[in-house]
């Protein structure tokens, strides 16, 4: 298969069989950027469906004791570590700034800024995940404990998976940055993971405000 795949010219082919025509761009938006924004729109809707489940459990079901509800069989409300999560929020918001630092640095071709920014972002993201893991292990209820537990783990867990994906992307970008694949003129491959990272950050703020604060 490979032999045909890389284009041996066979006799009798029409000219257009032989080569790709030039690409004509009909929009000033760069295709990968547009694709990323559409993908994020789709991701936001996935979060939306999880939020919908959360609001149904919270609003559509009657909770005379208020929200959070009582633990099953007790008169004691579920408790969330609001301040620990606030620290996590600060960590993640900071990481958005460090990520932005990397973006501005590459536009000026400052390699140290790029690598520093990416490294900091990566470790802040990792710290976020570790704090989250610690929170899970100390929180005292599981996803099986009432719809409250289910929706809490669903929203924070869905977000956690996104942080993990973002970290993998950042790691890949970091390796490429160290190898010098990006330049001031040529850095879309760095920008896209960082856009994704900002998205993960914004989603966390919404999750935090909804689940912990409100």
């Amino acid at each position: 298969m490979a032999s045909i795949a890389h284009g041996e010219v066979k006799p009798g082919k029409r000219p257009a069989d032989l080569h790709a025509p030039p690409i004509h761009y009909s929009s000033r938006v760069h295709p990968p950027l547009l694709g990323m924004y559409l993908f994020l729109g789709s991701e936001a809707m996935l979060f939306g469906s999880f939020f919908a489940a959360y609001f149904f459990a919270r609003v559509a079901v009657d909770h005379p004791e208020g929200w959070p509800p009582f633990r099953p069989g007790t008169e004691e409300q579920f408790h969330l570590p609001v301040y620990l999560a606030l620290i996590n929020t600060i960590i993640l918001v900071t990481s958005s700034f460090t990520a932005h630092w990397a973006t501005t640095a590459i536009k000026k071709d400052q390699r140290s800024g790029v690598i520093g920014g990416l490294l900091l972002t990566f470790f802040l993201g990792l710290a976020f995940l570790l704090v989250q893991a610690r929170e899970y292990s100390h929180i005292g209820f599981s996803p099986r404990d009432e719809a409250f537990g289910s929706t809490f783990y669903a929203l924070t867990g869905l977000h956690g998976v996104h942080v993990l994906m973002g970290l993998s992307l950042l790691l890949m970008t970091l390796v490429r940055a160290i190898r010098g694949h990006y330049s001031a003129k040529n850095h879309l491959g760095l920008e896209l993971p960082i856009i994704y990272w900002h998205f993960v950050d914004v989603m966390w703020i919404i999750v935090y405000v909804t689940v912990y604060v409100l």
Partner: protein
Amino acid sequence: MATHVLDGHGHHHEGHDDHHGPPPPWLQRGPLRRGGWLKALWTTPLSFGLATAFICGLRALTNWDPVWDLEVLLVGWTVVVPFGFLYGLGAFDYWLYFVTGRKTLPEDHSGHGADSWKDYFRVNTDHKVIGVQYAVTTFFFFLVAGLLALFLRAELAEPGSQFVDSNTFNGFTSSHATIMIFLFIVPVFAGMGNYVIPLMIGAADMAYPKLNALSFWLLPIAGLMMLASFIVPGGAFNAGWTNYPPLAEHVQVGNLLFQMGVQWAGASSILTALNFIVTIITMRAPGMTFWRMPLLVWANFTTSMLVVLATPFIAGSQFLLTFDRVLHTNFFVPEGGGYVVGYQHIFWFYSHPAVYIMLLPGFGIISEVLAVFARKPVFGYRLMALSLVGILILGFSVWAHHMFVAGMAPWLRIPMMVTTLLIAVPTGIKIFSWLATIWDGRIHMRAPMYWALGFISMFVIGGLSGIFLGSVPIDQHASDTYFVVAHIHYVLFGGSVFTIFAGAYYWFPKMTGRMYNERLAKLHFWLTFVAFNVTFFVQHYIGLDGMPRRVADYDPVYADWNLVSSLGSFVLGAAQLIFIYNVIVSWRSGAKAPANPWRAMTIEWQLPSPPPKYNFDEVPRVVGGPYEYGIPGARHVILEGGSELSTTPEPARVGAH
């Protein structure tokens, strides 16, 4: 990320030289390590073994009883094995190379195009090959799901229980609907769009060819998963294609294969839709403004917006259901504070827009066919395009009309009824504009035109019965009865499937380079048209009179009409064999098709049949509307434009490598 588009930038070939350089590293490996079926043959079982070992090993180590839990294993297999298979097939070769930090390679087109039939069975980045792959795969599933429908009509021909028990019967109804929707109607439009959209807008390929190849290969995976549910213990998923909990959480393990199959099919359609949108926005030929785009492109553009924004909701609904089943969470478990009706809200927030996902591309096909065969411009072109946008926006605000009797908040009923009924307005605009399009035309009654005109009358019936169901008081009587069954088939068979056949006959010469047999095509139409009405029209009556849907057995007073319906369905099924015969024989030995047998104006017909591997020698130049029939000297496109075309604008940013 970095794809064909980026790499191709500035890649102007002046002469007809063809230097693609050496093949990429992942093709320079031995046959067992190079992406392809041979490699998939060992990576697939390997991933299966790894998933099993991981899950059972973990459970054994943590003393989790039982070690062998089919529910958990099924989830593990359906998540991991597809990746193993796709990796073996080579769908990830480029990206794996990329994410491991190697330098980007210039596009070598190593996966592009087909020179023999074997090239249709590999990961191929050519949108035309992918279009054919989609079409053949989806029609295969059309036959499978149709056969399931015949089984269940055979059972329903008489009251009482004849051939199958109610477990098998419920499996038939559920998988018939699921496969028809997720593996035929939704993806067959993606396939047709894949083939014609880049041609229609004057592009060489889609924006992300590798992603395009991946989206196709996700589809047979989803289909096999759903069919596999027939062989797991307990039988096929049988809680209906809507899969409402709590029933879906209590029935046998095969239900998980519905949940996971829908995920893969959904991922496939999201990725394709994203690709369509980016292609249509960024890769139109010079002069192809939005107001000069063929309505098929408009239709796929709006459909793709619906897919990208709505499909995550069905993914969400099935994720939560799977969590409830496997992790024993409480999203839809009332004893644990869950809200049962919440599933229906989330599900229908996708599944109502899904009806438009299954209709709008068909609307586009009808606009193309009517204009060409009536030799007239589409009447009210702009309003036709805007009504698509209207349906797109309104489509998001009507989901709860499936739930008027479901026990949802009562105040929601009247607003949802109003938006539901209002969506008849843009739909009506389309019907009347189509009629005005053929009015005063020069109508050529070729096979695509039969299907297009048949579509109009059948779809009007489906639309009007939709108004009945949209009205809360009538819905209280008619919902969940055979009236709904009749309605959905007038919309999805008389609507979508008729447009699919119109499109299939219309583009058959372009896709295969051969003409189909016109007499067989017309026979196919008439048999289908008559048998379709015999099968489904009577169901309006038995439904209103008192027969609920999804029953294996029914009150004997409906025996006669059910027999009529079943007999009709057998003729309907047999008629489809004519189509299959016609396609196979014509593809092998039909008369050679000219470039433009229909004297159409849109760009795909100005190319040879089938089009060359890279579609165009030069970027075409669009100089007018797509339907200027009857206007002396009007042109839509100039293909041999000359060198003044080099005013190609640069994209705002330069690609990163």
